[in-house]
């Protein structure tokens, strides 16, 4: 059964409420909470939940998306899937929970035109963004890229623009020592 079910359920309910209220800031904050369990558990559902929450915050942030004809359908379906995911967890139905979380990204297939393209891009960028956060948590770049289904090219470029390399714990050797390694091997 899902670890920390009560915590996930609480976060999920808050995600649903924030989505309903168009509360982008809250959704962003909740997406950060999801990254801890995604980093430890690394199961499909934790990863999908982290990506979905972050994507939702980005989708709501771009208010022009709400002018597309497919918006109402997409918004309602997202809400329905969140409600079903909550019910699944409440019934201890892990499969139901997983199915409805993953179904949110699956909604892309039901969209058309530019709206589809935009939503797809949001999810793709969300995967890279979440991958970068997991890497920031200490998981290797390669493992993270594999988990999120992104390339090392994308992740390296994104992570390179963050402060991930500038924290004190990263310092493991002096620059002089490391330069001596390269000079010695080239002698």
């Amino acid at each position, binding site marked *: 059964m899902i670890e920390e079910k009560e915590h996930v359920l609480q976060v999920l309910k808050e995600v649903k409420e924030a989505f309903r209220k168009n509360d982008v800031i809250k959704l962003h904050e909740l997406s950060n909470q999801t990254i801890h369990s995604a980093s430890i558990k690394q199961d499909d559902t934790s990863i999908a939940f982290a990506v979905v929450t972050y994507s939702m915050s980005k989708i709501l942030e771009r208010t022009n998306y709400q002018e597309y004809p497919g918006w109402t359908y997409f918004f309602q379906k997202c809400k329905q899937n969140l409600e079903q995911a909550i019910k699944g967890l409440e019934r201890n139905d892990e499969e139901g929970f997983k199915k409805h979380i993953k179904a949110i990204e699956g909604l892309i297939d039901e969209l058309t035109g530019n709206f589809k393209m935009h939503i797809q891009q949001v999810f793709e960028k969300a995967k890279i963004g979440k991958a970068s956060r997991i890497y920031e948590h200490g998981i290797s770049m390669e493992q993270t890229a594999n988990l999120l289904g992104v390339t090392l090219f994308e992740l390296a470029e994104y992570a390179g623009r963050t402060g991930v390399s500038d924290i004190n714990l990263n310092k493991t050797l002096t620059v*002089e020592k490391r330069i001596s*390694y390269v000079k010695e091997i080239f002698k």
Partner: protein
Amino acid sequence: MNQTKVIIFDAGTIINFAMNGLLDMLVKLKKDFKGKFIVTEKVKEEAIDRPLTIKRFELEALMIKKLFDENIFELPYDLVKREDMISERNKLLDLLNHTYYAKGEFMKIVHGGGTSSLALSMILSKKGIDNVVAVDERTARMLVENPENLRQLFSQKLHTKVEMKKDISFLKDIRIIRSSELLYLAYKKGLVDLKDHDVLEALLYAAKFKGCSISFEEIEQIKRIG
């Protein structure tokens, strides 16, 4: 001591050079190097085979592939047996993914490519072959040089107690460099065909912004060394 010297390249380092349009720098460095530039099969998959299937990175993958075709990069099988390589990699992969423990679970922290580079370094060292590993990402580097720092990082970031269940101090003899040190050396050897500005700074920042885990402070320190 075996006379062959080896630089083992992780995927991130090659990708860094490729994304910065600096692959020719690796060609120049190779000409100046009395040994082999080695890449494991897993790393080749990540730097070439997979990106070749993605249109956005197809060009970079083709350019990296050219370096294989021209024998700038080689697979390690002149030096080690494939089955030994796979066996050592799998043992290390299993160990490292059963080292850090949080919330009742072992954290899966590494994947095949990076681990294969570390495993190869250990095999070569046992054979007396002088080698370094070029790794840009920080997790592998921390595992080798300061696994306790990595534990603290996990603990801080995850806001939970993280324990180390295995002793991985045997990794500490692996010597790690990054694309930043390779670029520094290329600069010092006059292999960089650029001037009229702070070329070293430009190279180091370019490496950092394409994923090399070097801090701003370290860049300034390298610049001071000059």
